[in-house]
């Protein structure tokens, strides 16, 4: 009972890594297709990034520099926890700088800084099947993918338009990859969808509880589903980041008081810090610094 704490490099045993690595290679070869894999029980709960953690653990080497974000931020508790896990089991170098990372594990965001060829983005995915909420049965959705039968998805989006005048899906907005598979981009805001299209970086998706791995290779077509008369559009914010003045970035709404006071700040904390270091200052910055 005293040997409980002897784990392999990056926690997973070699056989498990091989199994996941084979799944990753097939996923790359069939962009957007969900490869079933024998997901392992990890020492963190299902739904908290076990898929992403298994993918990262299988690709990670001693020379990698790892960044982990949740909601775009490096200091959210689950990101901190996953980063600490890899420091402990793989003794890997970690960073909060997007530019310095070779592997970025993410939940719910894609960094604002365009990713490069030398980087791999690993997404944590809760429900990998984009058709799941239209058809709960795996046996059925698998057939629909095989037959490229995506009518149901278009009907759903069209019903949105009929009811609301526009498509009411704001995150986990379905995409079509390389003209073949409809894919769930994970619950990123649709703001991030265009970043997936022809990205320089390899994008890997891990869903631990649902036991699926999928991939988008670099320079691959990723198109958000839409209609000619209702083209896909991303969220727009009518003001820049209150701390760094960035425009065309995704903002978090921060409640300042109980009298309706609000400010909007970058969701990507590294991007925001970078800009502030470079001298960009938003109206709330002075106040924040004074408070520290």
């Amino acid at each position, binding site marked *: *009972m005293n040997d409980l704490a002897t784990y392999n490099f990056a926690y997973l045993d070699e056989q498990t890594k091989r199994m996941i690595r084979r799944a990753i290679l097939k996923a790359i070869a069939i962009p957007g297709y969900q490869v079933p894999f024998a997901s*392992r029980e990890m020492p963190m709960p*299902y739904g908290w990034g076990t898929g992403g953690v298994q993918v990262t653990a299988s690709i990670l080497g001693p020379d990698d520099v790892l960044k982990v974000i949740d909601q775009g931020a490096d200091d959210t508790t689950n990101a901190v926890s996953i980063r*600490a896990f890899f420091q402990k089991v793989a003794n890997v170098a970690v960073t909060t700088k997007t530019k310095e990372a070779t592997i970025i594990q993410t939940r719910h965001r894609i960094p604002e800084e365009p990713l490069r060829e030398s980087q791999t983005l690993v997404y944590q995915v*809760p429900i990998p099947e984009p058709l799941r909420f239209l058809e709960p049965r795996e046996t059925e959705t698998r057939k629909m993918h095989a037959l490229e039968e995506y009518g149901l998805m278009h009907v759903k989006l069209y019903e949105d338009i009929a009811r609301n005048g526009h498509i009411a899906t704001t995150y*986990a907005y379905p995409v079509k990859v390389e003209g073949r598979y409809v894919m769930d981009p994970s*619950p990123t805001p649709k703001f991030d969808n265009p970043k997936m299209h022809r990205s320089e970086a390899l994008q890997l998706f891990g869903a631990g509880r649902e036991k699926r791995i999928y991939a988008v290779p670099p320079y691959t077509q990723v198109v958000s589903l839409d209609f000619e008369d209702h083209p896909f559009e991303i969220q727009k914010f009518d003001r820049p980041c209150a701390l760094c003045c960035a425009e065309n970035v*995704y903002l978090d709404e921060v409640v300042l008081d109980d009298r309706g006071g609000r*400010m909007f700040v970058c969701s990507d904390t590294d991007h925001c810090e970078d800009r502030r270091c470079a001298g960009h200052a938003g109206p709330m910055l002075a*106040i924040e610094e004074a408070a520290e």
Partner: protein
Amino acid sequence: MYVAVKGGEAAIQNAHRLLADRRRGDRSLPAITIEQVVQQLGLAVDRVMAEASLYDRSLAALAVRQARGDMIEAIFILRAYRTTLPRFGSSEPIDTARMKIERRISATYKDLPGGQLLGPTFDYTHRLLDPSLLGDGAVAEPARKEPGEAVMRVSDILDSDGLIEGDGTMPEGHVPGDLTREPMEFPMPRDLRLQALARGDEGFLLALAYSTQRGYGRTHPFVGEIRIGEVEVELDVPELGFAVSLGVIRVTECQMVNQFKGSANEPPQFTRGYGLVFGQSERKAMSMSLVDRALRTEEFGEDIVAPAQDQEFVISHADNVQATGFVEHLKLPHYVDFQAELNLVRRMRRDYETARDGEGDMKEAAE
């Protein structure tokens, strides 16, 4: 004034210190030992072993203590440890016919060879809080019978008359599947379904089993036999040419006898539902056997009309570690997605107000 939330790391460390403090509780009381948990909370240990699919009483007890008595948390801890263990081989199927029986009951026969043996059961205890357990009073030694001959299975009695279907043989050379090592796929063969049920959540299986009794997929069950006791686990070693014993485990087995099936080619026979669980857990083994039979609906050419008969529904939701993870993940930050929804609701309200004001203007113009 705005101060950004920082220092997640320190917050986590402090939370864990507080957790350790609460786990230990009042320091003036002696700490509970693993051996005490093994000895005195044995059924909690059994459940953790069963649903973690790992037979190790001490580690299960450690998990129970570490989890402060939260069963699903303890199961989770033990499973995460199990994942890291190397596989040396697969044991031979255990032979429950050779079980050293501690409890054995049948609801289908009044008396039968080997007899009815009540064993350490809560049945027929009156559920009155027992003040004598407030202290550490003397407990009388139980009456013991020397473990005798192997006791025949009730299903074998029916089987010898051809009155019950066979015991589910597998094709020659069939290697039993392993859910924890291979990706799941539906429809799922019975060996894998039984594995999923054996490690499935006791409460979930209990509710499903109950639902079949209330008409949601009725199977007309009788408890052919429940037996609890120790069986030997053996590993075939090709180099030696024979199987060696690895040790003894306690299991609970339930054979449910269900209403018949027959066809033009086969005379009517009872059908079976099977339950087998680590440790002593009759509730789980019985629930498992009811759900196993319900999941065989298609095999018997019956229509799937109830949740307990739907294997994709049952198997996909029976695992409490998966379920608790996903339900509880909702407490993780989702503010990025929420922001997206917030923006949309605001936009829809603007559209609504514009449309309403527009209507008002039109009315005014008309008046």
